[in-house]
């Protein structure tokens, strides 16, 4: 039983390390920023999640102390990684104005709200929007 728990903790640590490494390899190898963003936001977050799960299991099952900090850290990381990725992508779009032509159409009179802002008269009286298909 004890052996099984140790095996589980070891597997979680090894998987976490592999995922963190894959995320950083993606950060180096992928061609441009908007694709590079995927490495850290998915793979590295998963790698830290593996290490946190290993730590939680280790302290609960082998040391016999329940620690809640890991849940706090992982919830915090899983909440904040998409937000920071969103901000980085937005700042990148604003830094490189030439990318604006590559953006897909919104299908509405207004363009992307990060460039054009909210439509006129926001709130109660919205201008006519293109009907949805």
């Amino acid at each position, binding site marked *: 039983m004890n052996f099984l728990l140790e095996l589980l903790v070891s597997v979680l640590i*090894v998987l976490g390390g592999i995922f963190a490494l894959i995320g950083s390899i993606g950060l180096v190898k992928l061609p441009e920023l908007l694709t590079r963003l995927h490495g850290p936001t998915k793979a590295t977050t998963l790698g830290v999640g593996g290490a946190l799960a290993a730590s939680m299991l280790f302290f609960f099952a082998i040391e016999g102390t329940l620690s809640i900090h890991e849940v706090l850290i992982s919830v915090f*990381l899983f909440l904040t990684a998409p937000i920071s990725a969103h901000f*980085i992508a937005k700042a990148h779009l604003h830094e490189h104005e030439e990318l604006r032509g590559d953006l897909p159409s919104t299908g509405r009179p207004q363009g992307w709200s990060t460039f054009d802002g909210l439509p006129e008269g926001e709130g109660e009286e919205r201008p006519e929007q293109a009907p949805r298909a």
Partner: protein
Amino acid sequence: MIEHALNFGYVAVSMAVLLNLWRLLRGPSLMDRVLAVDTMVINVIALIILFGIQQRTTVFFEAALLFAMFGFVSTVAYCRFILRGDVIE
């Protein structure tokens, strides 16, 4: 067995930090560098947690939590500075 797994984890995460450092020094655009620092913070959190498992102590979790919070806040503040020219308007 956990010892071997921890050694593997140290090597993998340290290589990840070195790759991030390469991207931080090399990164063609400004946002590449910000992204590299953001990833580096996450990897350092993983290193701190692995060290805590090795030392069998939970005192390092506060450090990891502080790293997570400051990494997030600094990334958002920098992006906001690029976007708006000001952090607090």
